């Protein structure tokens, strides 16, 4: 028996002293003490106070807390009774995906209890033990100021974020994100919080080989383990070939895998899934499975994949659901056709050639590049290599599935609930009305939860056993068997004239998609389609080839392919400016597009179809460049006192999209409740970014009513209507516009109903704060309560319900520029990002404080990609650093001291209230900005990620 005090209450537990403290706290209901890193002692999500000292609850044994006092994050306040610290974190905008927000709130509380006036260094020190991926740490410093001001008995004095659109009450104002109270206080929110106690557990046996046939699986001993319910293998799983990308149907990704395959294609690939009553039994059974592998040679790089006679990653046969080439039968004869290989099915041609490990390809351009290069006064040509990077969401992939009355209920941490439902339907054979996907709050997505990576297997396991099943990736699995940024080799040739104009650009992109082709075409395509349209250049050409290899799988990652293309192009442009003797800034200003410029380059850059050629719409690019150059004092040299440290500056233009015109589709349903409050049900998938809040704010401003009387429900496929999901920066633009359409319909319906009830003309009526209809003619007033009450009485017209749908060919592109000042130590190769300014045009920022935090978060993440993060594989394809400590994410100490995010005020023509996307674009600028700054500092061009000290010293000739 272990006795201790938890949050002021004496508790006793009849548990083994070897239980982890965190597990004991879970038994007590303190589920906000979370585990992000399998007890590695890195992420800090398991932070508790033990006798007044912060510790990792996973690294303390229950036996050691006898007689101790423990405080957990959920003791600070609940969603209706928030503490000053919790409220300040919400107000500062840092409660985003928020898996770690309760732990951060506890640390900040502890800090202020011990020191009511902490310095910036104190805040930095206390947060050095917590990993924040979504919002960076910048607004935690701001929150600390807000807390100080509040504790001093006053109101906030520090500005949180600039506000926009003074004529609107909610849009463009700093207001608490609607899900923030629940998240910061550590109330039930995530998939793990909804698991029933009687759940079963699933674990996966994974391949030790980078490429091998699975010839035999003996599960006889494993099945004898008490509590084992089911073992799923390639020999008993459904014969359904699909893919994991959450994209519009038909997908521009080859269908090239089954639930489990007779051929494993990377270290960590699924071999068997074991479902058992306890996790321990499942693991014991997994250890008893005997697999007979037939190892095969593997390829890991695009160079190896394209080599003559290279081992083939897919060597079965190819099918097309449309547009099959005439010689397909001949082609298939050249492949092995071995049944263990499975097949590759293209929904439509993606120019793949699996015979040569090519998953997809695309070629195109405008003008005549070869002729133009002959006219160039200077040409630069170089190859830029990006590395394999993991999203590292705080909440690793998790799924809980169960059967209920013959229906399959799937609790998912996903960006794409409707795509999850469709793909689970394919695998189980269930129609969509028999499947319910419930997106809970999502503890970090960044693109990795755009793929259906764990839901397929978990849902199938629940379906065939008829029992609840929980699956949760370990952190190692999150690295090796999940999704990553495609490593790419971007070759750029750029030509310019003496006046600084760019007259020709050629990009050759060779991308490594790993063993499966999810997002194979579209990620690399973005390295051209979201970069080349920045340039007013008449001669541009691209060749894209995407290779299958045996590295851990690649997929969608915030920024998609854009960061890699931007890296190559902006560094090449900087080099070209130098060669031409033109100032880089002047060259940028001379060549960037502006409103009205026709983007012919887009014709060939659709997602596997003809692209949508449109002129540039609203564009704050020039203002962003000018503003950022001013902030960083472009052109002014900075010297360090220490001769070993050289200082330089760089920047890069960036763009993205706001969803996929002609492909994305969103819907919403608005309902006036009987008391005049409003519930909007959206198909959207808010993954912590504030999409529900955008819809609530839109409701407030369109229906002239306060936020407290509005509820937004989203992400539940039963109650909502179809939405393609949160990816491609579509949330605000598509889901937001669908909601606006539903709300506009509601506004009209309220006016019509009020006109009927009042016996007046609609034209004489208006909506008025705080939720009523006013007659400008008679002065009569009907509150929404009056209207709805009458409508839902037995003699009324019935409840007011309105749908809204959004489809468009319009394209609203966010623009911006990111700026870096770095110091490079020429003796040690160390790089410090001293200043970083993210300047962006997001149209109307609907949630300004959240927008800034997302810019900071994406910028810090991409600083990490540029300087530290790198999945390292050994010669056999095993990842040697598949844990948080070794992998190398940036934390508070890596954040630039001078870190700024600035929103350029631009009103867009198509976006909801003039809004464009904000977050994804902010991943695109850091690498070229830092790369160019390093060159400015010490003269070397860093042409591969990460720009490590070792590589810098090699470039400087200090080591070999």
């Amino acid at each position, binding site marked *: 028996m272990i006795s201790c005090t938890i949050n002021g209450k004496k508790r006793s537990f009849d548990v083994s*002293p070897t239980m982890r403290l965190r597990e004991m706290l879970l038994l007590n209901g303190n589920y906000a003490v979370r585990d992000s890193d399998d007890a590695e002692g890195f992420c800090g999500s398991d932070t508790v106070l033990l006798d007044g000292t912060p510790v*990792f609850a*996973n690294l*303390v044994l229950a036996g*050691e807390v006898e007689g101790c006092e423990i405080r957990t994050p959920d003791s600070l306040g609940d969603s209706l009774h928030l503490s000053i610290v919790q409220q300040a974190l919400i107000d500062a905008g840092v409660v985003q995906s928020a898996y770690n927000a309760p732990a951060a709130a506890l640390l900040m509380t502890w800090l202020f209890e011990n020191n009511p006036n902490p310095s910036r260094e104190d805040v930095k020190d206390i947060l050095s*033990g917590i990993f924040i991926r979504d919002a960076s740490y910048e607004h935690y410093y701001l929150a600390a100021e807000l807390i100080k001001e509040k504790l001093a008995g006053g109101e906030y004095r520090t500005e949180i974020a600039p506000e926009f659109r003074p004529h609107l009450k909610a849009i463009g104002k700093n207001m608490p994100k609607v899900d923030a109270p629940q998240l910061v206080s550590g109330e039930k929110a995530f998939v793990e919080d909804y698991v029933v106690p009687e759940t079963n557990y699933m674990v996966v046996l994974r391949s030790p080989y980078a490429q091998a046939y699975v010839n035999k699986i003996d599960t006889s001993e494993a099945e004898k383990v008490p509590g084992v319910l089911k073992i799923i293998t390639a020999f008993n799983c459904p014969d359904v070939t699909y893919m994991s990308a959450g994209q519009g149907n038909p997908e521009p990704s080859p269908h090239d895998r089954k639930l489990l395959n007779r051929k494993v294609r990377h270290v960590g690939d699924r071999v068997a899934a074991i479902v058992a009553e306890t996790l321990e039994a499942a693991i014991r059974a997994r250890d008893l499975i005997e697999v007979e592998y037939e190892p095969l040679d593997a390829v890991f790089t695009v160079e190896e994949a394209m080599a003559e006679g290279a081992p083939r990653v897919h060597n079965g046969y190819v099918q097309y659901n449309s547009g099959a080439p005439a010689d397909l039968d001949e082609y298939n004869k050249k492949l092995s056709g071995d049944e263990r290989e499975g097949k590759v099915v293209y929904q439509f041609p993606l120019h793949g050639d699996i015979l040569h490990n090519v998953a997809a390809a695309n070629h195109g351009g405008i003008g005549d590049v070869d002729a133009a290069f002959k006219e160039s006064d200077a040409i630069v040509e170089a190859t830029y290599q990006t590395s394999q990077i993991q999203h590292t969401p705080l909440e690793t992939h998790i799924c809980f599935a169960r059967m209920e009355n013959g229906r399959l209920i799937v609790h998912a941490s996903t960006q794409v609930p409707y795509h999850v439902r469709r793909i689970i339907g394919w695998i189980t054979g269930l129609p969509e009305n028999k499947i319910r996907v419930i997106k809970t709050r999502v503890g970090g997505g960044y693109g990795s939860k755009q793929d259906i990576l764990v839901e397929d297997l978990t849902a199938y396991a629940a379906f065939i056993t008829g029992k609840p099943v929980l699956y949760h990736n370990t952190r190692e699995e999150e690295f090796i068997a999940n999704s990553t940024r495609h490593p790419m080799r971007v070759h750029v040739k750029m030509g310019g004239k003496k006046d600084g104009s760019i007259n020709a650009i050629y990009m050759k992109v060779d991308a490594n998609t790993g063993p499966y082709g999810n997002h194979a075409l579209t990620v690399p395509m973005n390295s051209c389609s979201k970069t080349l349209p920045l340039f007013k250049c008449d001669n541009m050409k691209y060749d894209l080839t995407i290779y299958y290899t045996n590295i851990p799988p690649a997929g969608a990652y915030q920024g998609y392919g854009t960061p890699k293309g931007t890296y190559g192009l902006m560094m090449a442009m900087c080099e070209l400016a130098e060669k031409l003797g033109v100032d880089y800034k002047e060259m940028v200003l001379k060549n960037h597009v502006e409103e009205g410029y026709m983007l012919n380059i887009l014709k060939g850059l659709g997602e596997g179809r003809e692209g949508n050629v449109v002129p540039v719409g609203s564009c704050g690019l020039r203002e962003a460049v000018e503003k950022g150059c001013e902030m960083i004092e472009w052109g002014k040299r900075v010297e360090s006192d220490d001769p070993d440290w050289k200082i330089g500056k760089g920047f890069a233009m960036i763009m993205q999209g706001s969803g996929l015109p002609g492909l994305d589709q969103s819907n919403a349903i608005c309902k006036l409740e009987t008391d005049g409050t409003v519930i909007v049900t959206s198909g959207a998938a808010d993954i912590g970014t504030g999409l529900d809040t955008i819809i609530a704010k839109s409701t407030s401003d369109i229906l002239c009513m306060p936020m407290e009387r509005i509820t937004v429900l989203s992400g539940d496929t039963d109650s909502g209507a179809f939405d393609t999901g949160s990816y491609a920066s579509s949330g605000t633009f598509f889901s937001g516009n669908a909601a606006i359409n539903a709300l506009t319909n509601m506004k009209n319906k309220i006016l019509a109903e009020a006109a009927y009830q009042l016996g007046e003309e609609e034209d004489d009526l208006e909506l008025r704060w705080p939720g009523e209809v006013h007659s400008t003619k008679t002065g009569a007033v009907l509150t929404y309560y009056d209207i709805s009450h009458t409508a839902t009485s037995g003699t009324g017209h019935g409840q007011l319900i309105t749908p809204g749908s959004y489809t468009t060919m319009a394209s609203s592109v966010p623009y911006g520029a990111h700026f870096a000042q770095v110091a490079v130590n020429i003796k040690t190769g160390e790089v410090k990002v001293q200043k970083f300014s993210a300047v962006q045009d997001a149209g109307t920022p609907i949630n300004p404080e959240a927008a800034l935090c997302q810019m900071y978060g994406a910028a810090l993440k991409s600083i990490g990609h540029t300087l530290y993060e790198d999945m390292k594989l050994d010669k056999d394809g095993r990842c040697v650093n598949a844990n948080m*400590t070794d992998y190398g994410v940036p934390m508070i100490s890596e954040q630039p001291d001078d870190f700024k995010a600035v929103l350029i005020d631009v009103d867009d023509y198509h976006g909801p209230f003039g809004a464009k996307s904000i977050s994804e674009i902010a991943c695109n600028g850091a690498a070229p900005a830092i790369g160019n700054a390093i060159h400015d500092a010490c003269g070397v061009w860093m042409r591969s990620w990460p720009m490590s000290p070792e590589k810098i010293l090699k470039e400087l000739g200090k080591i070999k």
Partner: protein
Amino acid sequence: MYDIKALYEAESLDHAVRLLQEHPSAQILAGGSDVLVQVREGRRAGVELVSIYMLDELRGVSIDEEENIRIGSLTSFSHITNDPIIQKYINVLGEAVDMVGGPQIRAIGTIGGNTCNGVTSADSASTLMAWDAVMEVTGPEGVRRVPIKDWYIKAKVVDLRPAEIQTAILIPKESYEGCFGHYIKYSMRNALDIATTGCSVNVRLSEDKKTFDRVRIGYGVAAPVPVRAYTAEEFIQGKEITDENIKEFAETVLKDINPRDSWRAGRALRRHISVVMAERALRESISLAGGVVNG
């Protein structure tokens, strides 16, 4: 649930030794930051643990009757950093363990755990090496002392015999008196990262502060175990404080270190950095000691 066979709670030092005798394969659990991470990784599955967490007599920093600085093995990193004795005499040790990063680890990580795991990258190791620390070990035969140069046997193995517990780390007066030191952790990131290479230098200057009376330099990750660069130390002893001597000292460290290639960094980088760090740490130490180069 961790895969731990049993947890025995020691009530006294004698009890802890007895428990270790009764359970010869048991592992000592101090703060838990290291051992529990290893258990989690499956490296110590089914392990028995003897927890010495409750032995408060192993906590704290004091000056003993021999005028040694005595650091109890269970003293946490944060305690060491904030301790006035450490700050006065060997501040560099407090700075070194502070670089582990994260208040949670600094609160539970102990100096004993950091030196008993035998890991060459441990943040305290190169500094203790450079200050000629002495390990006090208590076991069935009583107490014995092991100079740190003999402590590290090979990677991850230290001179702890069956049923022995490291109870304190001593810094002899001769080792700290008049000495000033600086530690450089060269790592890719600042917090919660493992040192690519660590270098700790300390100096004792002559009374006129013109010559080196003694210089010691310890490295982590320059060899499988923490090492000293004795050849460089011997070279510079008694020499004048000049740029030339400092540079030659730094170059000479290469005679004593033997870093490896690893996925974290290549041997060439580690060798290059070791020289750069030696020079930087020496210059900083001179400055702390009130010396002036070419003065």
